[in-house]
Structures are given as C-alpha cells and as structure tokens.
C-alpha cells in the first residue's frame, strides 16, 4: 500500500504556488488596512468586510499552507468542527448577553 498511497498523502506544493499564496495574503492585508483607515464604510459593514477578508486569508493559509486542500477531508472537517463549535459558543452566549433587560428601580 505504501507505494501508491504515498503520493496521495504527501502533496508537494510548487514554490510558485506558495509564493502566490503568500503574495495574495500580503495584498489582502494591504486592502484590509486601506479599507479600515482610508475608506469610511457604514457601521456594521466595516466589521463584516474586515472579518470577511480575514476569513479569506485564513482560508488560504488553511488550504494551501496547511495543505488541507490536498489532505484527507477528515482533517478539514476537524477544522470546520472547531469553528462551528466556537460559533455555537458565541451565538448561544449572545442569546443571553444581548437580550438582558435590566430592571430599573423606580425609587
């Protein structure tokens, strides 16, 4: 088994691929800084843009630097599971913290 499956397990990225990803990350960083500092985006969308760019960057790192794109899908699933459970934690906690109505004393 080791002969054939060797190729599947050990993907070797070309230097060009890696440099391309690195450059893309650099450009995205510049874009996000420029958007934040020099362009005024109305309230909720500034965070949304910044986070979306961060997600794209994270996706690039995970897929190509961390090799998930060529790796077994189970490892990618593990990453997604971690993110999903983090979201669950945040969303459910927000169900409390966003909807508290304090009783204001009348005297």
């Amino acid at each position, binding site marked *: 088994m080791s002969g054939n499956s060797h190729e599947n397990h050990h993907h070797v990225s070309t230097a060009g691929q890696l440099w391309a990803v690195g450059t893309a990350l650099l450009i995205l960083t510049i874009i996000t*800084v420029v958007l934040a500092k020099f362009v005024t985006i109305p309230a909720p969308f500034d965070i949304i843009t910044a986070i979306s760019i961060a997600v794209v960057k994270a996706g690039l*790192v995970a897929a190509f630097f961390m090799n998930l794109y060529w790796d077994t899908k189970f490892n990618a699933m593990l990453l997604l599971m971690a993110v999903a459970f983090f979201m669950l934690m945040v969303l459910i906690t927000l169900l409390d913290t966003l909807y508290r109505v304090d009783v204001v004393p009348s005297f």
Partner: protein
Amino acid sequence: MANHSTSHPTHVQHHFVDADQQFDSAKMGMWVFLVNEILFFGGLFCAYIVYRSWYPELFTEAALELNTFWGAVNTVVLIGSSLTVAMAIRSVQKDQIKGLKINLLITIALAIVFMVIKGFEYSHKFHLGIFPGEFYTFEGLEHAKAPIFFSIYYMLTGVHALHVLIGIGLIYWIYRRAVRGDFSSEYYTPVEITGLYWHLVDLIWIFLFPLLYLIE
C-alpha cells in the same frame, strides 16, 4: 514479539504498521490538537465579542491607542514566516536539507522580529500607564470600562505571544534535528506538524489584527 522490528525503518515506532500510518496518525493527532487551540482562543474571542456588543463605543475609542502601522507590519511578518515554514516543508519533501535549514532560520528570525515589535508596543503602553485590569492608570480614555478592553487586549495578544515563543522553541528544536540529519523526504513528520502549529499561530493573528487594530 522478538522480531517485531524487522522490516521497520528506525523512525517508525513499534506499534505502527508502517511509516504512512505513523505520519497520518501524527498529522491527525496534530489537527485534533489544533481544534483544542482554536477553542482555547475561542473563549477569549467570545469574551471579546460579548464586551464589544455591550460597549461598541469603548472599542472604537480604545482601539485608537493601538498602533495600526506596527500591527500591520507584524501581520506581514507573520505571513512571511508562514510562507517560509511552508517552503521549509517543501524543501524537506524534495530532500533539500539546506533549504530546510535556511527556511527554518528565516522563520525563527521573523518570529523574533514579531516579538520585538510586540515588546515595543507593550512597553509603550506600560509607559502610558495602560496596564491590564486594576493596575490601569492611563487617563486618556473617558470610558469607565476602558481597563476591560485592555485586559482583553493583553489576554489575547499575551496568550498569542506565548504561542509564538513556544513556536520559536519548537522550530529551533526542528532546526537542531535537521542539522543532525534526522529528516529526509522519507521522514519529516515533526517538521510537518510543527508547521501546522505555526500556521495556526498565524491564523489566530490574522483575526486578531482586524479585531483589535482596525476598529474605526
């Protein structure tokens, strides 16, 4: 079980069938560990999100005290180090041990640059009296909850910096083993999983940067 090691390369532990099984197991184990790391930071991010949703104006004001330029430089530095780690793995996969060593050294150097910049940022804040929690003495911010913002800032960046330090140690260890000639295209599991760890450190920073430095 006397003959259990026949036909086993020396780097394969006795309870594995072959090198592939060992490599896959190690990598999967590392991914499971990264799941841990994500949720570990997840707790801090959760605190961040809750407090930001409570006091959005605090975050806008307080983020002005953080230096976007140096934050951006650090982002670039970490991305660069991620790239060199990826290059290091590529080198060892192609049996280019010299390339492996050089890439590891550049990674360590970039990580140190990151820490130095971080150190300047911290010392500048300490100078202003921006200490975490109850030691906070800075008077430039009106908001009553300002110390909490900086507590979250210090916890997030502090725990991240701790991970960078551990990463420097790990990569140095990999470098020493590379010098000793432990690695080849047949066996480079430690390089691969240390690389995964380092990329995660980078991943976390990719989110920390816009969340802390880029609030307008």
